[in-house]
């Protein structure tokens, strides 16, 4: 079936929802495609209170932010949401997105502008036995635990001490699971200190300069062997230690899901600080393809708060390019750009600033 819209938003997570929010009740026909049977993306699994400032819902739990945004977007008469619908590909010559609804119905979606907010997927780690049942990405543990109330296991080791590793370890404790240790290859803890402080006082040790050498088990994980790393990130023979566990959780980073952007023939670049291949963009989230905007983790892996700001900026940009800006667009754009800059300013933002400097281009308009 052929569907026409003014602005197509691919992805109903925090970035896509905030883009849609800015376009609510404008004269634009907005279509949102989301492959899950619900909106909210990664927000639905987040039980912790969000950081940032009150404009970014600081102090509100992630899954509650997801609900608020979903209610706003689904109640707008100019926004149509198609759930269980995957944007499968972009056909360059014919200029449409092929969408597969509920694994059965194909649609040709024609649009004037598109906001790609497809997020990022979990990376894995290379070690012997890394495919045993019982070894999960951190997101999978959150999905099992927080979305469906099913425990991934009873005796867990977490790999990675970035924010995701620290937060998921805390969430495991809340679900009543024993977390034996957090293993971190770097010499320092990767995530916010306050997240680490929480899990340390609850008795979870953090072993820095340590990595997984192998996972052992017959039909599922039974134990792991860890090994220390030296200052050059090389394994130190003789420092192997064995730990029993039935669950290993890999929180080792995310990679932007940028396949569609390649099909749009946007200028792409590999930027390790941003997680992988990202599209070049201007400060208003427009890529080198005039009709394509990006927002959220697909533009560079950060936090949900940044995703929400980028979604707002991308939504306003798309509307402006169609000369249908919502009321107070200029104020909202300025405030969002200022907040986003503020998020990147501190020492924590150094990596992101370095990454963005490699892909930000002058105005793509």
């Amino acid at each position, binding site marked *: 079936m052929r569907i026409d819209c003014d602005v197509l938003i691919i992805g109903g997570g925090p970035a896509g929802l905030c883009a849609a929010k800015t376009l609510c009740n404008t004269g634009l026909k907005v279509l949102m495609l989301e*492959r899950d049977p619900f909106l909210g993306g990664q927000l639905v699994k987040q039980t912790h209170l969000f950081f940032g400032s009150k404009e970014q819902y600081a102090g509100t739990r992630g899954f509650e932010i997801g609900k608020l945004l979903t209610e706003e977007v689904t109640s707008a008469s100019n926004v149509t949401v198609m759930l269980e619908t995957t944007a499968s590909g972009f056909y360059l010559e014919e200029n449409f997105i092929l969408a597969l609804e509920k694994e059965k119905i194909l649609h040709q979606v024609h649009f004037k502008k598109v906001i790609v907010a497809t997020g990022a997927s979990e990376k894995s780690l290379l070690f012997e036995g890394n*495919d045993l*049942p*019982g070894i*999960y990405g951190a*997101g999978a543990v959150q999905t099992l635990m*927080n979305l*469906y*109330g099913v425990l991934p296991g009873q005796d867990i080791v977490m790999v990675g001490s970035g924010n995701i590793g620290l937060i998921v370890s805390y969430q495991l404790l809340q679900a009543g699971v024993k977390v034996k240790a957090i293993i971190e290859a770097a010499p320092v803890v990767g995530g916010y200190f306050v997240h680490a402080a929480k899990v340390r006082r609850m008795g979870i040790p953090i072993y820095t300069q340590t990595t997984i050498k192998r996972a052992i088990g017959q039909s599922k994980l039974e134990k792991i062997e860890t090994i220390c790393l030296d200052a050059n990130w090389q394994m130190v023979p003789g420092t192997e230690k064995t730990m029993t566990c039935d669950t290993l959780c890999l929180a080792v980073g995310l990679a932007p899901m940028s396949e569609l952007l390649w099909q749009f023939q946007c200028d792409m670049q590999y930027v390790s600080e941003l997680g992988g291949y990202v599209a070049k963009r201007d400060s208003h989230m427009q890529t080198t393809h005039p009709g394509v905007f990006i927002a959220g983790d697909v533009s560079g892996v950060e936090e949900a708060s940044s995703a929400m700001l980028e979604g707002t900026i991308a939504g306003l940009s798309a509307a402006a390019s169609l000369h249908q800006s919502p009321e107070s667009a200029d104020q909202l754009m300025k405030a969002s750009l200022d907040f986003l800059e503020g998020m990147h300013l501190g020492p924590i933002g150094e990596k992101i600033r370095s990454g963005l400097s490699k892909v930000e281009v002058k105005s793509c308009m």
Partner: protein
Amino acid sequence: MRIKDHPILEFHKGKAVTFTVDGRKYEAYDDEPIAVALYANGITTLSYSLKYHRPRGVFCCIGNCSSCLMKVNGIPNVRTCTQRVRQDMVIETQDKGATK
């Protein structure tokens, strides 16, 4: 194993359903993915790798990694981590050849 009490979340379960996995009957709720239903029933091997028949289970649980593919109602390679379980579903493990 299912969580009974949680300090922050409440779990509202859908309708109870029964289904089979390789001929054996199990129970779950119809708003959860097949893989989650299997894990709640203690089944952690969902598939086997094609060449060496290594057991595989859930890895990403969001439809990206292909670790969870099973045959569902005769259709092969269904992503069980996103496909919801339904009443009387017939689920089968694929590529069960026992060679190592």
